[in-house]
């Protein structure tokens, strides 16, 4: 008998939609040309890329020429932050970000610190939200970049991007970068990206392929490229375009935006059911993050268990989740997000992240709660001492 499979790790990556696969196969086998080639085969490929650019711009609320394709979220974040820091260093050396960013943001800031920039890390409250008052206090005339994630990948907290943009736009030298990898296609973004200069996107979190993403760069915003080469993407991102990836990204985005309202509502319903099921039926469980938050991310600590063991126990029932920490004794294996929210060691070590997709059913959720009840109870026998 085939084991039931409940994939609850959609913030790690998603299953590629058939629409995206079809678009990719076409780009791989029919329109396989190099967009830079002068002949018809090249034009065919170039058209795919340009169409994709237009579609993404439409969904995002920007212009086609503001979309630059990259190899994914990590590259987009690197390009945005390093590119902006290097291009604007003559205006100042102060940077601001938050303490709960993705490593592809935090590590970039760490490197910039080593290169002589100074970085202020905004704290978060116990629900994972930044404090706008703190932002107001630390922003200075020589602040050149503020980088804030839209939706946190571990706990699903949504940052007040619109209000932050208002504060930041009072400083004419400050660029605002938003890592929207977990937000795009999952929650409504601020209209016309008003006040945002740079925004990172990824395809594989929205049912597109891995290895492709995009960076929104507002018109007339100058940033320094990371790669030198053939001058593709207006010279901002040299390298032959990943046409199949871009085709898949665009097809996936189209699917998501066609179903946006329905899918958002569906995920919210599933998340609420999962949350209520766990918190009411399993004792000693704690919600990490906001009560509402993004509709697809739920983080809960199962006190008296170890997250990694619970993860493997769930895996044996076909349920796939992720953890806030690994069993490893290394300190770096513990979630910096949960730590920044002031969670205790026991809460962090037992935290499980469930991330949903609209392709799950109510039965899947109920099955998950049932299995969790059983496995948590079993594991507590050995671990709680």
């Amino acid at each position: 008998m085939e084991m039931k499979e409940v994939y609850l790790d959609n913030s790690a990556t998603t299953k590629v939609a058939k629409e995206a696969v079809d678009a990719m196969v076409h780009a791989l086998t029919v329109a396989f040309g190099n967009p830079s080639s002068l002949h018809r085969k090249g034009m065919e490929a170039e058209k795919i890329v340009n169409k994709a650019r237009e579609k993404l711009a439409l969904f995002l609320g920007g212009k086609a020429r503001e979309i630059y394709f990259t190899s994914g979220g990590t590259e987009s974040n690197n390009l945005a932050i390093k590119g902006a820091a290097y291009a604007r260093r003559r205006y100042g050396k102060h940077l601001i970000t938050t303490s709960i960013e993705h490593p592809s943001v935090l590590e970039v800031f760490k490197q910039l610190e080593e290169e002589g920039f100074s970085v202020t890390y905004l704290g978060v409250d116990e629900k994972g939200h930044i404090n706008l008052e703190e932002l107001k206090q630390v922003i200075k005339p020589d602040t050149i970049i503020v980088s804030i994630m839209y939706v946190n990948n571990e706990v699903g907290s949504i940052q007040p991007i619109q209000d932050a943009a208002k504060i930041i736009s009072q400083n004419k030298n400050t660029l605002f970068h938003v890592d929207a990898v977990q937000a795009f296609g999952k929650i409504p973004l601020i209209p016309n990206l008003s006040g945002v200069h740079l925004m990172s996107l990824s395809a594989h979190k929205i049912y597109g392929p891995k290895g492709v993403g995009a960076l929104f760069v507002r018109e007339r915003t100058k940033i320094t490229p990371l790669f030198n080469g053939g001058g593709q993407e207006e010279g901002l991102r040299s390298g032959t375009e990943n046409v199949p990836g871009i085709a898949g990204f665009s097809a996936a985005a189209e699917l998501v935006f066609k179903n946006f309202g329905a899918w958002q509502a569906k995920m919210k319903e599933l998340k609420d059911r999962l949350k209520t099921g766990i918190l009411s039926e399993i004792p000693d469980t704690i919600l990490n993050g906001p009560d509402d938050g993004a509709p697809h991310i739920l983080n809960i600590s199962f006190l008296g268990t170890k997250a990694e063991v619970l993860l493997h126990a769930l895996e044996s029932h076909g349920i796939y989740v992720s953890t806030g920490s690994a069993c490893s004794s290394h300190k770096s294996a513990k979630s910096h997000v949960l730590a920044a929210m002031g969670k205790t060691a026991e809460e962090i070590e037992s935290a499980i992240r469930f991330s949903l997709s609209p392709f799950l059913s109510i039965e899947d959720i109920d099955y998950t709660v049932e299995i969790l009840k059983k496995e948590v109870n079993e594991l507590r026998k050995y671990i709680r001492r």
Partner: protein
Amino acid sequence: MENIYLLSFGEIGLKGENRPFFERILIKRIKQALEGFEGLDVKKTHGRIYVRVAGPQDEVIERLRKVFGIVGISPAKSCDLDIESIKSAALEAVKEVDYKGKTFKVESRRTNKSFPIKSPDISCMVGAHILKNLKGLKVDVHNPDIEVNVEVREKGFVYCKRIPGPGGLPVGSNGKALLLLSGGIDSPVAGYMVMKRGVAIEAVYFHSFPFTSDRAKEKVIELCRVLAGYCSKIRLHVVNFTDVLKELGEKGPNELLTILMRRMMVRISQEIATKIGAKALITGESIGQVASQTMEALVATNEVARLPVFRPLIGFDKVEIIDLAKKIGTYGISIEPYADCCSIFVPEHPKTRPKLDDVHKAEERFDIKGFIEKSLDNIELIEVTESY
């Protein structure tokens, strides 16, 4: 002229009447190690093994360096038995090493006395030929950078390099033992050391999903792949240990848990060993390294062993073990962070000096025989080769 490899073997040359037995196994091992290369031909004469094989020299040497029993490897030229052929073979051999600005001497050995020229004269003539044809070389008979060796046997052989082999005895010449492999740094090294003495090994790994992840099991398989490079194949017995671990964890006294676990592992391992014809167990224990490896803990673990338990690392410091692991090629795999979550069972304050009476008393509440039987019914056998 032909490229060949001259192999020397040290210790097994001393084995008197058993010598043909060791040599036969060594030749078999060499053939296994070079399997897949074209034109393989392995021959032995007095004190030497000749290998003819096509294939890149680096790769051939790399593989031969993992065959226990080989002491030296010399890539050599073989040629017809006349002085002109020997001279040109010697010239070719020197051209293959970095000779510019170096000193050399020629050392000849004439075991084939039907060859008309005597050793010192061969050396002179070959040396003169090299000097005449290559610039930038000087003779130094006392302290040469390059020693050009000429051997006159049924054919002529010339070589300038001698790469050290791993030494030891050919695997399979000294019976079989079962290695308790954990995925950590120590146990693969222990397996290597016993294999080096000619012992064939199989391995046992105790898998405790979900307390150890499948990645931890993959890691153990990877370690077996590296070890298989030294012996062609490792049979890995994966014991499903979860139920035993759970019951020990639930009912056992916390501070003795590790000892109880290890005693169960030894008991189960020796049942497997008996089944597969292994005459001993091998562990990576080193005195005092962790709480379960104090003298008292080792005594408690050893008490249940009816087979000899080989502990080749017993007197090694951690740094020494790490150096060896790096040399063997297991270190990088061992330190991958898929730590086993068994550590959740590890008590905060384990007994470092367990008393046997306490251990016996703690074990009274368990059906030890049942544990063993259940575990033996639940074994996955994986045959791991280097290319697994």
